[in-house]
């Protein structure tokens, strides 16, 4: 019975439509519904600006935790199911980032305000991180992978870590106290990466030991 439930859960998790529903649903839940229930409060544009930024950074955090999870739990079917949605999650982070930028332009009241805001390093970090996300989203298709070749495509997409660093900094200086939120995401991502690297290094040395011992076995026959 439990096995049956587990199987159907994994089937749901692996479903593309399910992933799409969650990724779009977050936006509807936090950006669209509040507009109809009064949840946006006294300064609705500011609320939309902050909410969309939060969704973007947490979605980026989600996609960045998928690879380490796969290394750490290679046999977990749940992790494998979630890893099917890497592209959708990554592109969503970019879409929410672009929405965030759009709200920023609206909040600044047009191009004059936007130009003024572009003189601030705080905004540079956001724009730089978002530019990377846009480049990665535009190359998130099979055609680009073929065209670039697997190796260089992968190298290019490692820029996601640079984007995450830039955007986490952008988030944590956005206001006093924002660091207290951003630090949890940073801690989670950092822990996952360290655990992944540890596992890979340990795994490699174990592999090396095995390799060496078998070599010896060949070199010095009994």
């Amino acid at each position, binding site marked *: 019975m439990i096995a049956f439930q587990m199987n159907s859960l994994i089937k749901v998790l692996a479903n593309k439509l399910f992933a799409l529903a969650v990724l779009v649903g977050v936006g509807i839940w936090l950006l669209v519904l509040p507009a*109809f229930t009064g949840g946006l409060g006294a300064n609705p544009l500011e609320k939309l600006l902050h909410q969309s930024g939060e969704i973007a950074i947490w979605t980026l955090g989600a996609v960045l935790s998928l690879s380490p999870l796969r290394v750490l739990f290679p046999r977990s079917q749940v992790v494998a199911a979630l890893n099917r949605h890497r592209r959708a999650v990554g592109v969503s982070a970019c879409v929410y980032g672009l929405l965030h930028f759009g709200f920023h332009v609206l909040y600044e009241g047009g191009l004059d305000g936007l130009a003024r805001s572009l003189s601030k390093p705080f905004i540079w970090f956001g724009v730089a991180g978002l530019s990377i996300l846009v480049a990665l989203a535009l190359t998130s298709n099979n055609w680009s992978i073929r065209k670039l070749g697997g190796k260089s495509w992968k190298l290019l997409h490692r820029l996601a870590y640079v984007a995450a660093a830039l955007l986490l900094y952008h988030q944590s200086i956005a206001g006093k106290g924002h660091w207290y939120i951003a630090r949890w995401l940073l801690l989670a991502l950092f822990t996952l990466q360290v655990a992944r690297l540890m596992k890979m290094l340990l795994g490699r040395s174990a592999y090396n030991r095995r390799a060496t011992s078998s070599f010896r076995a060949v070199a010095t026959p009994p």
Partner: protein
Amino acid sequence: MPRQILTSVWVLESSVRFCGSNRQISVDKQKPRTGCGHYRWDLPDSAITPEAYYLRRREFLRVFGLGLAASALLPPRARAEPSALNDSLNPAFNLDGVKRTPEDLVTTYNNFYEWALAKDQPKELANRGWKTRPWSVEIGGLCANPRKLDIEELIRLVGPLERRNYRHRCVEAWSMVIPWDGFSFAKLVDLAQPRPEAKYVKFTSFFDPANCPAHRGKDFPWPYTEGLTLQEAMNELAFIAVGLYGKPLRNQNGAPLRLVVPWKYGFKSAKSLAKVEFVAEQPKTLWNELAPNEYGFYANVNPNVDHPRWSQKTERVIGAGFFSGKQPTFMFNGYEKQVAQLYAGMDLRKNF
């Protein structure tokens, strides 16, 4: 404003009240909003801000002086709504032609870090058992009459309350127009009689780790502190508010008494004051200590000096609407005439 217009406004407001139309916006009920960023409060001024509370002083004292016993005598409706203050508008601070920010926005959008970092949370978190009456305020430091006063006693001592419509400009580049009820800070200075060596006034907010979870944390150097030069504090604009829209201050707005210095960024107007001290040296203030490059001691509203992260040239008017854009920010928040002389010869870029 000419006398006739003033009178007609008074008559209009009174008629709204006496026609029996109780269209006052309740703070407790969140107004449902229609979609696309349009608010139900997009109504004519007369409909959304009936605030003629010309009640007699005795009624005010009955409610707060006798506490529960008195409130039990009142009809249930009066108990549910905050009681009215016996203030009256000071025509010198009417801000002719300026639209006031609706009351439900002033009481639901609050930077009150003791309760939450998000501005829509203090309205709830500051009202979960935090008692702002009875409340005592300490007036001390370098003065002839140091004393500890109960808030009601202080209100009695300073004489009748007055109403002032003040612009409020947050350092985060948003603004409101708020009808405060209270008294000029100069009256408190008169009570205290500072000694000649007093050059600054230090304001300290409440510190209550038992009821305020943030006070138990180490993220900020609580209690909240702010400061003014004595000259600034004596300026006619410096105000102690005990009410808002004719009602006693709500907890989230800094009950039971707060500083209001409208030519400075909002964070200078310390909330829920526990202590006012006259001191010789420039006092340490919370935001200045945390980020001296972002929040100066003077913190005068100045469109020519940017915050490191955003421009101060413009401000978003709370309640103006989704696509309203921003309006230009004025030097000293439009109070140049009253306060510019305080800073004559001072480099306001350096002393921001």
